């Protein structure tokens, strides 16, 4: 005879009700924890100075901005691996157009690059029915290739202060412009996901595409729009690189797709779709930035940084998962 146990699967199902909250709390908890640990351990190295903290926000701004758009793509049940490469291409087309026709033309060229690539991704995924993983993987190669080809792999300098100020190194009063871009994307993204019909359609599409379409959601259009917007925002990310580094180059943003996806998942968005949080993605991105900065201040070598950062991300996601399904 055994005593009644309280650890059946029943308890697991029971906790299911709190799943949404749980996944998101982990990133906030992790953020606070890492912040406190670094504050104590790295006080001497100047971790807590306003300058350093602003620096973290500045350095993560491109990841943050793109992570906001990626949240929509992932929450709709798709993925976009081409964002990093696309940022590089957009930085190049922007720089080239600025040199030829001026700043406004440069901005237009960058955004247009993003729109074209994003639409191509979206059309191939929703009309041709090719999985987004493959489409955007292929697109990653294509965009990098194009960027290298049209520049002969050389950087294209940007000599317009106005552009560099707005998109990178400038300040508005005491506030760095990159900080403002982060805030802007957070506000727009959060409102779009939570407060307008499109956001709900994204979540419904990712949660159950069949039921969503039976309920009148045009799931193909919803996904197409998400991928197109993600392309445009990735291009904006590339322009932020261009502004900060005063040039366009195919390497800007390379490999960022992984940080972006990590930030989104850390933030509580479900990789299988249906659940998403923009606030979480932004905090996730800041958490990654925090870790990068702290490890640097600790004096770790780049190789060591990579290892520790990878381990922390896996741990955080594992915690979020365990709480989600335990």
């Amino acid at each position, binding site marked *: *005879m*055994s005593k*009644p*146990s*309280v*650890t*059946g*699967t*029943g*308890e697991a*199902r*029971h906790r*299911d*009700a709190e*799943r949404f909250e749980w996944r998101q709390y982990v990133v906030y908890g992790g953020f606070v924890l890492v912040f406190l640990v670094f504050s104590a351990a790295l006080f001497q190295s100047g971790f807590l100075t306003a300058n350093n903290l602003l620096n973290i926000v500045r350095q993560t701004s491109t990841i943050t901005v793109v992570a906001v758009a990626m949240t929509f793509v992932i929450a709709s049940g798709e993925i976009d691996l081409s964002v990093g490469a696309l940022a590089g291409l957009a930085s190049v087309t922007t720089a080239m157009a600025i040199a030829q026709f001026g700043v406004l033309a440069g901005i237009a060229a960058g955004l247009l690059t993003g729109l074209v690539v994003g639409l191509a991704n979206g059309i191939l995924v929703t009309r041709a029915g090719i999985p987004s993983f493959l489409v955007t993987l292929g697109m990653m190669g294509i965009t990098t290739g194009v960027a290298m080809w049209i520049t002969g792999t050389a950087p294209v300098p940007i000599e317009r202060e106005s552009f560099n100020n707005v998109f990178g190194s400038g300040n508005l009063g005491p506030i760095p412009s990159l900080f403002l871009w982060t805030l802007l994307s957070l506000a727009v993204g959060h*409102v779009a996901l939570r*407060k*307008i*019909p499109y956001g*709900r*359609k994204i*979540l*419904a599409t990712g*949660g*159950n595409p*069949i*039921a*969503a*379409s*039976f*309920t*009148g*959601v*045009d799931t193909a259009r919803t996904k197409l729009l998400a991928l197109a917007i993600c392309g445009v925002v990735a291009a904006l990310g590339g322009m932020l690189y261009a502004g900060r580094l005063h040039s366009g180059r195919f390497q800007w943003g390379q490999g960022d797709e992984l940080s972006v996806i990590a930030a989104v998942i850390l933030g509580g968005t479900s990789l299988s779709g*249906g*659940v998403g949080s923009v606030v979480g993605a932004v905090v996730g991105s800041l958490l990654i930035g925090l870790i990068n900065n702290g490890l640097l201040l600790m004096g770790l070598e780049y190789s060591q940084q990579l290892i520790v950062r990878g381990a922390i991300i896996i741990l955080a996601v594992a915690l979020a998962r365990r709480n989600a399904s335990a």
Partner: protein
Amino acid sequence: MGALGSTVSLRGIGKSFNGVRVLEGIDLDLFPGEVHALVGGNGAGKTTLMKILEGVYAPDEGGVFFDGERVALGSASQARARGMAMIFQEFSLVPTLTVAQNIFLTREARGRFGLLDDRACERRAEALFRELGVDIDPRRPVGSLSAGEKQLTEVAKALSQNARALIMDEPTASLTKSETEALFTIVAQLKERGIAIVYISHRMEEIFAVSDRVTVLRDGRVVASGEAGSLSMEEMIELIVGRRMEHSFQWQPRSVERSGVPLLEISGAVAGERVKGVSLKVHRGEVIGLVGLMGSGRSELLQAIFGVRPLTAGAIRIGGVPVKIRRPSDAIRAGIALIPEDRRVQGLVMGHSLRDNFLLPLLDRFTRYGFIDDRLGRRKAQEAVRTMDIRTDSLAKIVRLLSGGNQQKVVIAKWLAAGPDILLMDEPTAGVDIGAKTEIIAVIRKLSRDEGKAILLVSSELPELLAVSDRVALLRGGRIEREVDRSAIESEAMLHRLIQGN
């Protein structure tokens, strides 16, 4: 402990979810060779109780006894080892695997070198289906089956496990009458083999037809338990809903004005494999019962009208005006709503809240300056919960955690709130309790009579279909073979013969 000679006994079972009491002090005994019917309203706790028996949930208090011996709680593998099998209300089949692979999942036949032998599984599955008297190809992927065929696959799967006790949670919710009869024959066979059976259903006739013993649950407590013959149908219904209720499945003759332009006119509609040239007119205020054998294309026709699988030929006119419906959003704009057959797959985003599901078709309407008006949404959802009597502890409850019937009510509620002119209903009362069924019938009558809506109804529950239809259209071979005025149908048996084609 437990009753003498019982296969399984439950004693003093209690269970709460998130502090909400779902079951309290439940005793239940299952005897070999006996069908024990478990009845009660939506959310009464039937499925939860069975999941405790099956070891999916551990109860907060009480004990489970197999052959008089106390067993560990909340262990599904132990329950299975003791010979418990359950046909879940929500299907537990893998859609990408074949029927045979599903039936023998983890118990596959092994061939040479210990490799899986699909052929052997298929042969055994075929034999099982022959016993059941149904015709399903074991090689088909489960995802391509209709809801009814999935249910039969579940039955076959449970049978293949040589269970000593079998729980059937609303097994006939999506079966046709003849399939239901085939199932009853199987149940009788199982009884003879000494298997203890729990039979859960909201269909009173079935309860009286198959059960030896009945237990009535209300709000998580046993309100009556005894021999099947000891209760009349009226008494049982009163025990279930907790108040006297007249049984309003009576048809109320009336005439529909059919001279004007029909509200919905379909001509020569071709779509998919099963709709091969359907022509049909539905007038304002008219309810048409669409009948046919399983696989006759009833659901497909409704889905074609709704734009899920757009017409490849033919035309749809609404109020005499031709409309192009390429996707559901076109249909919704044209004032059409579809309550689909499979609430889990087609009706609901199971991982989202009741409120979000309810609001999904209404999103574009519940906005102010482009932003969702959450207050209005919440108020409407609250209203719907009240009028449909949806049992939930909050609007934020994830619909997967609602009871099956309450999920169905959410689907109905969201479409009624959309205020369509033309309502396509595919098995709208599947899994819905007797009180709510009466309510839905009243709603259908009100929509057609007082509000002039056109309704196309598919239901395998013939009494219900006969209660509200003005005309019955018979679908066979992808076409409307006959249309019969309701007044010309004298009995359920006559309609049944019409469907069978003799």
